[in-house]
């Protein structure tokens, strides 16, 4: 049943829910009956070793490919059959593990192009992208918000790795999402860049539901409100960071029987 629209704007409202998600690749079960719920105002981290199924989960939730079984609900609507672009327009933003920015475009242009996705009227196709006030307004806002304002005219390919990751998030924000699925946003970052990114995520938390797939455990346990641990495609624990730290199943999975 669809949740009432008024409830979705409140903190704690479930904006994205995955129910019983299973994904098989031939005989390999990449995800097995995974349940996940993302709430507004909360960062939900998903951790696990390589091959645990974290990226597969993000890909299914974002609509990159469909689940073999299970259901995805976005803002109370069943979107399992929706294409990725439609989910994105409905309020689902995602970033990738690797940089997917447009290197030859300026920082501002990257954000403006992403913002353009929010209002794609066919009859305005000919309008100059540079003079589109709506896209430019949104792009200006996210460039400021992501701390890239000083670099707005620089070709994105010339940014440092950390700045590229910031731009990835800025491009997500330019689509004005309610849910953010972030695949290893801290990968390859230095200490200073990590701090900046964590501050940005903390800032975004109030208005968004965030799923964070990350290998940096210090950062995860510092920022996450809830942590889900995956092993071999299954969820072995999902709880608050404090409870996860002492969960015997998690300790066994991460540290073995020592």
């Amino acid at each position, binding site marked *: 049943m669809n949740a009432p629209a008024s409830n979705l704007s409140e903190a704690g409202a479930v904006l994205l829910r995955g129910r019983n998600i299973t994904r098989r690749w031939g005989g390999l079960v990449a995800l097995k009956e995974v349940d996940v719920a993302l709430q507004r105002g909360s960062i939900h981290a998903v951790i696990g070793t390589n091959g645990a199924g974290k990226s597969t989960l993000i890909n299914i939730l974002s609509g990159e490919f469909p689940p073999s079984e299970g259901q995805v609900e976005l803002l109370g609507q069943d979107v399992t059959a929706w294409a990725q672009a439609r989910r994105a327009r409905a309020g689902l933003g995602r970033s990738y593990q690797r940089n997917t920015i447009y290197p030859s475009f300026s920082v501002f242009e990257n954000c*403006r192009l992403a913002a353009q996705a929010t209002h794609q009227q066919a009859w305005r196709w000919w309008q100059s992208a540079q003079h589109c006030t709506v896209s430019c307004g949104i792009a200006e806002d996210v460039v400021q918000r992501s701390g890239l304002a000083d670099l707005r005219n620089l070709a994105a390919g010339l940014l440092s790795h950390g700045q590229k990751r910031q731009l990835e998030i800025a491009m997500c924000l330019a689509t004005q999402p309610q849910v953010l699925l972030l695949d290893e946003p801290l990968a390859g970052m230095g200490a200073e860049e990590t701090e900046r990114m964590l501050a940005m995520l903390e800032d975004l938390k109030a208005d968004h539901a965030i799923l964070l797939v990350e290998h940096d455990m210090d950062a995860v346990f510092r920022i996450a409100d809830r942590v889900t641990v995956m092993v071999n495609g299954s969820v072995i624990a999902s709880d608050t960071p404090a409870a996860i730290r002492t969960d015997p199943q998690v300790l066994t999975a991460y540290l073995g029987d020592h």
Partner: protein
Amino acid sequence: MNTRLAFVLACFALLALFPLVAGSYGIDLVTKIMVYAIFALSLELLVGGTGLVCFGQAAFFGIGAYTAVLLSSDSNASSLAWLLPASVLAAAAYALVVGSLSLRTKGVYFIMVTLAFAQMAYYVVHDTPLGGGTDGIYLTLKPVLGTLLDLDKPGTLYGFTLACLVLVFAGLAVLGRSRFGRALAGIRVNEQRMRATGFSTYPYKLAAFTVSGGIAGLAGFLFAVKDGFVNPEMMSWHLSGAVLIMIILGGLGHLRGALIGAFAFALLQELFKSEAIFGAFAKHWHLGLGLSIIACVVLLSRGLVGLPAQLPARLLGAKNSEGAAP
């Protein structure tokens, strides 16, 4: 005014002044090259603008040409006012059909599917009475626009072709800066990211494919009017390959690259065909043309548009290495 715009304006100004100094051979040759340039621009929208390597562009060119000839009357000169749009629309309609199916594939499959559709069109005109078979069909009376334009006159056809080239170039330049054009550029760089951002990429690509087919149809129409004759070779894969070489030679991703590439390709062709220069070797002109294209691609990775940027570096590099030698 930036140098690129100044270069393009200078090219168009030179083309406008060319008939004042050229003879009938020169006018005929440059008219043909301008038609090739329009054809190359149509493919540049797909390859350089959207990242779609179409290997069947000649089909749209040929359909534009055949439509012009098949719809023309043998007793009265047809009006340009309806014959030109009909040729463009016929080519665009075929592009819409081909695009709607072929754009479901990617990479090398897309290249092969577009080639297959072009070969289908080729065999329709080659093997049926509709297209006059291998002999082709003659255009008895060339189209007119009242008393204003008579395309039977080489000078008028030259001016009309130049006007079409300027319009297509300007239209594609505006399109490249539009919301639609920027979305196509995004698709060229990273289609997956565009989908994740909220763009349904298929309609964008299909629209680009259809517009490209329509422009190729315009080029085909002009070619048929210029030669007064069409045959199946206008739809052959050789021509699809040649136009692809033109845009690679000129430099992918630049409209002026298509323009330069068309001129370079056609002039190299004329050069190596010249018996006055190459004597008996002129009959092997394909060899000379091929070698010079390979040399261009090897030495100029960004095509001829990259020449001003690369030449000083190469010359400097050569001098430095000479200086470093013991």
